[in-house]
């Protein structure tokens, strides 16, 4: 919300500097993102160089067809010669003049005296766009007659303003208006708040306004006002300047008034061209299936039965609270108006706005909930301005509702503020703070909530916030007083850290990759993904990890080793996916490097790796890859590792080499050897595989280093020979293995 400070000052009188006001608001009320200066820079006497001028003489420039040569009285006695490119004025016009040395909005250099086609120009006649007062650049500003030449322009036009850029919270729709901010400013500064703007013109209205509300749930209130004889035209400069400062584009006097009043009071308005309403009637109803309308932005919209529409006797003419339709749009030739000052249900507007992907200044206000009591004041203010600015006659009024909501009453619990805040706030102060923001608090503890806060403040604890926010800087700094209690990581958290430590220690760099991957079999898809690559939950860590490794290699990286420890998501029967912790690694060096990493990881956790279930692979381009399900792994990690005596009785080491068929694996041999020799075979590790003449065709020789050991006695050479015999015999029988040495 952009709050032009000149506008704010119309409603509240505050004494302190703007920066201090912003600081106070930030602490007690809402974010103030920044303070922006708008319009003519107000420093070094710059404003004095903008004055009212009267054109005494205007004629074609002798050397240029498109330029005028003017003599302009700016109150200096002698008129100034000024060259001007506009033709929408002549001698006698009162105009706005910038004198040499003036710094225009957005300009880096001050205005100089310049020769234009051979004629010296000693100033500049201004268009509204040149001083941020409007968007029109087709001609210069012609001011009202009767202004004395030389009058400071700033006395006549809002040349300069500061704008507070405010972010209002979801719970404070009341702050989405200048008057709402003024109310808050009055409370935080103690400044005086003016009555809300707008007064009905005198006189009676006689015409009937044909408004029928068929859906009070979607539209609890509809104030309709009829105007005759309006003249559509441009808004006055002050109004255009304010709209621009508040971030809206001026369009025409009638549309500008609806926008202006929305900004002033927070209740969005809409104006229809009555002549274009079928039977001049307004019907508030839900759309019928398949109903269509063209909105103001030129889009053809298909409506759904949940959408609330404003219709005439036949067709929708606006999507309630979101956008008007083209058909009944106010045009230059429009004379009769129907003003809508309604109240719409937030959820109805929200759902339609979401469905249509259409968010507007008005829909964002309705979504947060607008005070139904604001509609009437908005109608009054708009009426005043239609009459003043568009010459309209107010002809009819209707206020359709089924009873307006009661103001909520909430019990003040003074002790609750103390209990939650950790400081004492006397009850008198609490009620005083509440009164300052429009709550009615008598002597008792019953508090009546103002209509503009009725949605947010419904409980005693909500009153606590309204009080404590004014004292938030005084909250002490303490720590919970509970008795000391030891805390530690859970077993799984400790083990996860250990895995990270082992892999980092082994030279792996830890990677973080997206949880989302392209969709596919076994992957849970998102309803509305950001992109095709980030469209489903990953069932494993492979996709982006491989991508990261490749990217490193493309960047010229060597000895690449990455790992990631994160969650994966598998489809499951319950309401949520099966969310599991995995660790995966990718590295140069292929299958055996990956296997080595997995072995190291298991050794660190004292678990025997089970390669029948582990995912260890060599990938294309020479990568090795592994992925381990940690939930499964952690189930096998012993809580306590018991001592094993490997010192008292030394081991006996021997090498054995077996010649076997090519199809027999080392793993099978080891498994069989262990079965045959029992626990006294402590270790059997392959260290060489030989293929060639001595092994024979279709055969290979695998050399093992064996270690025999007993925890009970020293093994003799005879023991070793016996164990070796058992192994040789078993392997010969099972695999036809031949012991070479």
């Amino acid at each position, binding site marked *: 919300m952009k709050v032009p400070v000149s506008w704010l000052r119309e409603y509240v009188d505050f004494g302190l500097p703007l920066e201090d006001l912003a600081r106070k608001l*930030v*602490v007690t*009320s809402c974010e103030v993102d920044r303070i922006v200066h708008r319009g003519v820079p107000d420093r070094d006497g710059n404003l004095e160089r903008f004055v009212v001028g009267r054109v005494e003489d205007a004629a074609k420039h002798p050397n240029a067809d498109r330029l005028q040569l003017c003599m302009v009285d700016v109150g200096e006695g002698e008129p100034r010669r000024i060259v001007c490119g506009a033709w929408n004025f002549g001698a006698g016009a009162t105009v706005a003049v910038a004198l040499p040395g003036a710094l225009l909005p957005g300009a880096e250099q001050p205005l100089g005296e310049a020769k234009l086609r051979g004629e010296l120009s000693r100033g500049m006649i201004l268009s509204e766009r040149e001083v941020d007062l409007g968007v029109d650049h087709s001609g210069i500003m012609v001011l009202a007659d009767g202004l004395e030449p030389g009058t400071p322009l700033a006395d006549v036009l809002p040349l300069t303003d500061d704008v507070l850029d405010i972010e209002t*919270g*979801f*719970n*404070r729709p009341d702050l989405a208006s200048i008057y709402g901010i003024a109310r808050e400013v009055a409370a935080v500064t103690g400044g005086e708040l003016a009555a809300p703007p707008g007064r009905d013109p005198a006189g009676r209205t006689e015409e009937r306004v044909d408004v029928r509300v068929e859906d009070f749930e979607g539209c609890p209130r509809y104030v309709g006002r009829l105007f005759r004889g309006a003249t559509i035209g441009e808004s006055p400069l002050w109004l255009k300047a304010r709209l621009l400062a508040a971030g809206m584009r001026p369009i025409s006097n009638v549309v500008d008034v609806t926008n202006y009043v929305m900004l002033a009071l927070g209740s969005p308005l809409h104006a229809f061209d009555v002549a274009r309403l079928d039977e001049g009637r307004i019907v508030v109803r839900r759309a019928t299936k398949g109903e269509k309308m063209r909105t103001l932005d030129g889009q053809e919209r298909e409506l759904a039965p949940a959408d609330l529409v404003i219709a005439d006797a036949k067709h929708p003419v606006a999507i309630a609270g979101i956008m008007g339709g083209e058909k009944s749009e106010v045009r230059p030739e429009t004379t009769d108006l129907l003003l809508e000052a309604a109240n719409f249900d937030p*959820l109805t507007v929200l759902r339609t706005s*979401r469905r249509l992907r259409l968010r507007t200044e008005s829909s964002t206000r309705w*979504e947060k909930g607008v005070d139904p009591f604001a509609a009437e004041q908005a109608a009054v203010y708009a009426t005043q301005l239609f009459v003043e600015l568009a010459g309209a006659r107010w002809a009819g009024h209707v206020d359709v509702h089924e009873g307006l909501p009661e103001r909520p009453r909430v019990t003040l619990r003074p002790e609750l503020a103390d*209990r*939650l*805040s*950790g400081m004492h706030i006397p009850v008198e102060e609490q009620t005083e703070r509440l009164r300052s923001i429009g709550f009615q608090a008598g002597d008792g503890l019953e508090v009546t909530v103002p209509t503009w806060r009725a949605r947010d403040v419904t409980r005693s*604890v909500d009153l606590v*916030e309204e009080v*404590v926010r004014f004292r*938030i*800087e005084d*909250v*002490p*700094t*303490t*720590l*919970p*007083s*509970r008795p*000391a209690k030891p*805390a530690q*990581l859970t077993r799984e*958290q400790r083990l996860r850290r250990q895995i*990270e430590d082992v892999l*980092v*220690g*082994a*030279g*792996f*760099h*830890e*990677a*973080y*990759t997206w*949880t*989302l991957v392209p969709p596919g079999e076994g992957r*849970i*898809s*998102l*309803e*509305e993904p*950001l992109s095709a690559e980030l469209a489903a*939950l990953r069932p494993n860590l492979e996709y982006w990890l491989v991508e990261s490794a490749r*990217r490193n290699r493309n*960047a010229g*990286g060597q000895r*690449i080793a990455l790992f990631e420890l994160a*969650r994966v998501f598998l489809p499951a029967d319950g*309401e*949520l*996916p099966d*969310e599991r912790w995995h660790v995966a690694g990718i590295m140069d060096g292929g299958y055996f490097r990956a296997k080595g990493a997995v072995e190291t990881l298991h050794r660190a956790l004292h678990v025997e790796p089970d390669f029948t279930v582990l995912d260890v692979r060599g990938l294309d381009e020479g990568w090795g890859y592994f992925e381990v399900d940690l939930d499964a792994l952690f189930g096998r990690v012993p809580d306590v590792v018991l001592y094993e005596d490997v010192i008292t009785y030394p081991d006996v080491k021997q090498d054995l080499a077996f010649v076997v068929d090519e199809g027999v694996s080392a793993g099978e041999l080891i498994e069989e050897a262990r079965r045959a020799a029992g626990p006294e075979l402590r270790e059997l590790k392959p260290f060489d595989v030989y293929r060639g003449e001595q092994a024979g065709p279709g055969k290979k020789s695998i050399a093992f280093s064996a270690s025999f050991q007993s925890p009970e006695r020293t093994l003799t050479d005879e023991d070793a020979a016996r164990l070796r015999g058992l192994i040789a015999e078993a392997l010969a029988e099972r695999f036809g293995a031949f012991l070479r040495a």
Partner: protein
Amino acid sequence: MDVEALEREALAAIAKARSADELEEVRVRTLGRKSPLKLALREVRDRESGMALNAVREGVEQALAARQAQLAQPSADPTFDPTLPGEEIPRGSYHLITQLRRQIEDVFIGMGYEIYDGLEVDTVENNFDALNTPEAHPSRDPRDTFYLDDDTVLRTHTSPSQIRAMRAMEPPVYLASLGRVYRRDTIDATHTPIFHQVEALAVDRDVTLADLRGTMRAFAEAIFGGTREIRMRTSFFPFTEPSVEFDMTCYLCDGAGCAVCKHSGWIEMGGAGQVDPNVLAGVGYDPEEWQGFAWGLGIDRIAFARHGLPDLRLFWENDIRVLSQF
């Protein structure tokens, strides 16, 4: 006599000595019986100059001993060049977020908080409803939140962990929860659709906003060092009442104003407040009996600002040239 010059010359000669013999010569010249120093010592009459000369003598003696030890080392192999780099032992690296996550976990463990692992995919009930989020709240908008279906979302904050934890535990509860959260933001230098949050929850009989402020300060001082002030500003979150946003004094300028804090002196930290009674009642805690605070903050930006990264995407690109810096 110029004692300082004497000392300077002696030390220079010691440093220059290339052998034990040369060093012995220097010793005789500087500390021998006929050396100027010894002669001067003999002439001393007052305490002050005696102390000064003795200090010089001690300094020279120490320098002699040190140089002697240096020269006594076994004479090196002439082919041995100790200035060549050591054999490289591969070194991996922890991701910056992991480093910060561990630091934060340890701070909370130190304060007696459990670390609670929530779920990254959670129910709309836990992510929104039980956290008192109105249906019209913009955080529910499918333009901002990833839905799997009408009832399931990628969690938009770590707060559903509060709900899971409180439903599983009896009060009092002191816990912190860290992890990935998801928002439907387009990827650019300052936004990623996945980022990390830390959440703290303390529910007991008498935990107040003052305790919140103190805990945030303890946290900020533990993570950023020094003495930090905490500023609270009124805000709105559906699951806390009252709600605040909190800032800490800038860790770089201590509040004086600098580029890191955009000359405000304050660094925005996150959101917090007293747990809303609706939330407590919803998990079966009696709000008249139990109360406390919750707070959360994004940690990517902390790591990002602290280490001077120019672009949040660097956290996800896994360029080893970047990873190995930290």
